């Protein structure tokens, strides 16, 4: 049986047809019910935190040590009354340092699923050239901790056990660029500090609250369940094919600075600040485009996948749609505005994942 991956619609419809057929044949097969099996996986990947994820001004000044990560995850059987899902990733960087990069914990009881994932990495802001920044002021310490926290509350879909949906919350702390406007931004003038083009907050904050949906294709493929954009071939006990594992949140986004911007602008430049914490709509898409191989045995299933994984955390602020109320009315004022596009998360990197159910 082979399914051609031509489009989202065809793949989705094909996978539903395939998995429906598989579910039927599975019921009549000698395979042990996967819902009684424990699931364990190991993933080797590039660290999710790299300077490559930034664009614009931030790409020139944000630095992380190059690193790889080892992640382990364990899930109790789906038939258990109290389901537990725990995971952790350890990062080893180019400096020889090893530290915890992320933690994952989830429980499901009474049909309600609660999941929390945290991730962090130390980074630093460094001049783009030599020892001096060019028209940029770095607020606070140049060393920073980038953080990512995601909390999901929801439930599995009745006819699609590999998928879950509900409410999602994400908190991100990472460098942000605030563009600075004055009556003249063409540098400073004699005897006074420079009026920079941008103020960099090394630990700018974003909060996203919205609807959440996620699907895990590897586990689904290992026991012939439905996946998301999952097109599997079968040959005896072998399964192989492409899948797109996704975790999506779409909702309201609010961002704010970790610094006292009013005081910075007054003390540094003698100006009164015009600034509003931006808000709008945002979304996070965590993706894993993977080639999956799986092998089914009577009482156990094994899977191996590799591909590209990453995360896009983006948003549009109300100012992008409806304009801004900020203004610099005279020479005594300055305005700061978050630079859209430069301040979001774009993590990506290769991975290899090994999993087994037994």
């Amino acid at each position: 049986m082979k399914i051609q991956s031509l489009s989202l619609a065809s793949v989705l419809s094909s996978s539903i047809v395939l998995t429906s057929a598989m579910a039927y044949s599975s019921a009549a097969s000698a395979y042990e019910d996967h819902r009684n099996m424990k699931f364990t996986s190991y993933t080797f990947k590039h660290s999710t935190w790299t300077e490559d994820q930034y664009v614009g001004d931030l790409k020139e000044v944000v630095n992380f040590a190059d690193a790889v990560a080892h992640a382990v995850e364990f899930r109790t059987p789906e038939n258990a009354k109290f389901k537990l899902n725990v995971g952790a990733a350890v990062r080893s960087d180019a400096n020889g340092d090893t530290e915890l990069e992320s933690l994952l914990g989830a429980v499901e009881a009474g049909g309600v699923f609660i999941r929390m994932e945290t991730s962090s990495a130390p980074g630093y802001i460094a001049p783009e050239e030599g020892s001096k920044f060019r028209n940029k002021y770095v607020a606070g310490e140049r060393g920073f901790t980038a953080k990512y926290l995601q909390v999901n509350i929801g439930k599995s879909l009745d006819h699609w056990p590999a998928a879950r949906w509900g409410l999602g919350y994400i908190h991100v702390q990472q460098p942000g660029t605030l563009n600075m406007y004055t009556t003249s931004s063409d540098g400073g003038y004699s005897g006074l500090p420079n009026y920079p083009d941008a103020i960099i907050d090394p630990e700018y904050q974003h909060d996203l609250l919205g609807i959440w949906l996620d699907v895990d294709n590897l586990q689904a493929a290992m026991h012939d369940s439905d996946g998301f954009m999952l097109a599997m071939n079968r040959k005896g006990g072998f399964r192989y094919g492409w899948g797109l594992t996704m975790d999506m949140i779409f909702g309201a986004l609010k961002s704010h600075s970790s610094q006292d911007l009013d005081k910075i602008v007054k003390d540094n430049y003698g100006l009164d600040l015009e600034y509003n914490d931006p808000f709008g709509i945002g979304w996070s898409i965590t993706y894993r485009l993977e080639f999956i191989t799986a092998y089914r045995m009577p009482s156990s299933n094994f899977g191996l996948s590799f591909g590209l994984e990453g995360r896009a955390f983006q948003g549009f602020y109300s100012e992008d749609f409806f304009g801004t109320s900020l203004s610099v009315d005279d020479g005594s004022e300055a305005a700061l505005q978050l630079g859209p596009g430069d301040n979001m998360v774009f993590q990506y990197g290769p991975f290899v994942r090994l999993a087994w159910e037994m």
Partner: protein
Amino acid sequence: MLKLRSGLLLAAMSLSLAGCDSYPDISDSERNQPDPSEASNDTFFGADDITEERPVLATLSSDNTIDHYKFTIFQDYNGPLTVTLSGITGDADIELYDFNLNLVSWSRTADTSEELIELWHDAAYNSDSYDNGQYFIRVYTRDAGLISDYTLEWDFDQGNAE
């Protein structure tokens, strides 16, 4: 991946409503430059000038735990730059900042030991966007109850200039 980012940004831009200005309105001023208010030397903006020839003698106290100074190296020379805080009667420290107010170097020795900053001044960064030969010094104490006299001076050694 870059194409994906560009595509998403272009999509966002195309969604923006026509006629809405997403950037702040900037009013023209007569001088066409910022016109800041007066400030004390508790702030960078109110930093006092300090010359190479005349050291500063001042005092930190519970009412004044921080002072700022500024100086400029006008010559287009490279050379060693030193900043010294001496005659300290309490635990005071110094930090050196560049034209953009980013921290360049510091000395935070404990107790009443002399504080010394040494660095190489690179004239290659003498431009309006990088440095302009201008530096700022912050003298401060973390002990608000402390009273400390101090002598602050700086020196640029043109003898080693290139």
